């Protein structure tokens, strides 16, 4: 194609610098938001008003920005759970199930300490809270380990296995909190009993302490992948499992390891939302919504190209968009599920933009 004396050609990229990847990501998000305007227009709302309301509520409103931060923590953890296996070339789309089991394990600790009884106000937070956090991580890790073990040992497709585990965990939660399940709320409302006030996740300022996990893990993972032998092994395995074997890397071990660590982090995400976010403090009836949100982790992870630090601003943006989306949905009288639709549009745009990670447009003066 020739434009104004310049010839445009597609060229295969040889290298991709960090700033180039970031530019493509920004462009993809921009295009997705522009495409998404169509839905606002179809619903009879001005896209400019809608986006202004979304951003104003999500990032500048006192109440909304706290919700955004809560969701940011959740999305960041879900993203890490996806990213660690992703660096090893494996697909963990089981963050949802790992997070459910993590949440159940944390509530299991409460249950064991008698937290279900209404008069259990004086549980020792210094004992119970750490145990809940550990249990959540272990629960998630075990769920993840199933997929990692099967993948490593017999090369069982991890996408299908993690997805099956998601559905199993979904029904397991229903079993535990509904129709006479052990964690059922004494009021019998189809949700779990509440976390007693004394052992609710402490707040730093107004933000759940789990933000420390989100920020700390980002640094830790960056260090792991950039500086350590293990991180190198994971990346090498991700590039070529066969070559990694010649380099003395045991594939089974890598596969199990990345899924255990990823699962543990997803378990923490479950702890975060159901036991540390103000206003929730129970496995709510709409727990499937939080499970669905975990799929944002896939998009954040893909946009950040597996980089945990780069995932943080993306998670913050998407957290804000989903919170703000819910807000304008009510305010502008839009249909239910704006945040779901956004998830879909972002994802498919991002897929299309994968192309530009491999190709670029080159402009040459035509002869």
């Amino acid at each position: 194609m020739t434009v104004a004396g310049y010839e445009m050609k597609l060229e295969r990229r040889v290298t991709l610098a960090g700033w180039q990847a970031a530019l493509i990501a920004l462009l993809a998000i921009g295009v997705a938001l522009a495409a998404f305007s169509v839905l606002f227009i179809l619903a009879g709302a001005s896209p400019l008003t809608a986006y202004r309301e979304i951003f104003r509520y999500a990032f500048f409103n006192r109440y909304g920005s706290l919700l955004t931060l809560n969701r940011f923590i959740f999305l960041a953890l879900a993203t890490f759970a996806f990213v660690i296996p992703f660096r090893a070339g494996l697909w963990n789309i089981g963050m949802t199930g790992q997070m459910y089991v993590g949440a159940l394990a944390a509530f299991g600790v409460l249950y064991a300490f008698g937290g279900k009884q209404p008069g259990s106000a004086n549980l020792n937070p210094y004992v119970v809270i750490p145990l809940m956090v550990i249990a959540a991580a272990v629960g998630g890790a075990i769920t993840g380990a199933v997929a990692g073990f099967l993948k490593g040992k017999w090369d069982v497709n991890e996408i299908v296995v993690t997805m099956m585990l998601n559905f199993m965990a979904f029904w397991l939660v229903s079993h535990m909190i509904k129709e006479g399940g052990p964690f059922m709320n004494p009021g019998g409302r189809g949700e779990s009993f509440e976390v007693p006030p004394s052992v609710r996740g402490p707040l730093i300022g107004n933000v759940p302490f789990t933000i420390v996990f989100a920020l700390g893990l980002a640094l830790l993972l960056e260090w792991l992948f950039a500086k350590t032998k293990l991180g190198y092994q994971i990346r090498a395995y991700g590039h070529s499992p066969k070559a990694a074997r010649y380099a003395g890397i045991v594939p089974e071990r890598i596969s199990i390891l990345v899924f255990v660590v990823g699962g543990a982090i997803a378990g923490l995400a479950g702890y975060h939302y159901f036991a540390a976010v103000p206003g929730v403090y129970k496995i709510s009836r709409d727990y499937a919504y939080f499970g669905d949100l975990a799929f944002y982790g896939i998009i954040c992870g893909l946009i950040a190209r597996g980089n945990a630090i780069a995932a943080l601003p993306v998670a913050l943006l998407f957290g804000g968009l989903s919170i703000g989306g819910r807000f304008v949905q009510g305010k502008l009288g839009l249909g239910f599920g704006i945040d779901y639709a956004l998830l879909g549009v972002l994802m498919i745009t991002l897929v299309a933009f994968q192309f530009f990670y491999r190709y670029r447009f080159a402009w040459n003066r035509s002869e």
Partner: protein
Amino acid sequence: MGQFIARSLEAATIFTFAGLGELINQRSGILNVGIEGIMLFGATLGFIVTKTTESYLLGFLAALVVGALLGLLHGFFSITLGVDQVVSGMGVWILGFGLTTYIGSPYTGPLGLERIDTIFGVSPFFYMAVILVLLTWFVLFKTNVGLKVRSVGENPSVAEVSGIRVTRIRYACTTIGGMLAGFAGAVYALFYNPVWNYNFLMGWGFIALALVFFSMWNPLLLSGGALLFGLLWQLSLNPELFLPGIFSRYIWRMVPFAITIVVLVLISTKWFRLRWGAAKPEALGQPYYKD
């Protein structure tokens, strides 16, 4: 009991349509992990069209069209743009899951039309599925077109050299695969369970995907697997028919998924691999660049 078996056959029909679509996809070397998304789209649009026009025919047509378009989209990403096929399939799934939640929510609730008539106790779709299984088997293994599809899935470069249009065949297969997945979704939403609710499929598409691995890419084995899982699915919905009082109904819902994992593990063992390895399309999941 008769009712139970009929329902199982209907469930098997849906697995068969979706699985056949995926099988045709994979035979041409394209993996589509997003069939659940295509099914959701077919189901939702089919449901909306039928509900507004009161015409089943238009609903099924809408499902076929949207399925074909999504299959084409996956083809465009994975064939023309050379995007990782898993990434693209994930995209299709999440697009379907996200967008149908929004599009369909005003239509939440029952369809409110008279059920499609049955023939000898089962829906016409069952007979369509039987014919389609035989037809697919015949075309894939007994005709020239089938040979072309399979050779494209085995080794696209060699196929290209021998004069086969790889890109065209792959596009045709992803489009047909998408149509069948869309149709499967519509059978679910317009006949099997005509009540719309967000993300109502809850894993049908992913089980269909697993069934294709399990079938060794043979339509006849696929239909056998679909029958088994149709039965299992129905059993998990009505455990009281056979084993009353054991476990809560939620625990039973976990069973088909657990069995899917077990089956996947079994077919991944060495004994099975010796046979399976030969059947697997060699170029499955790998992008093909014509140089």
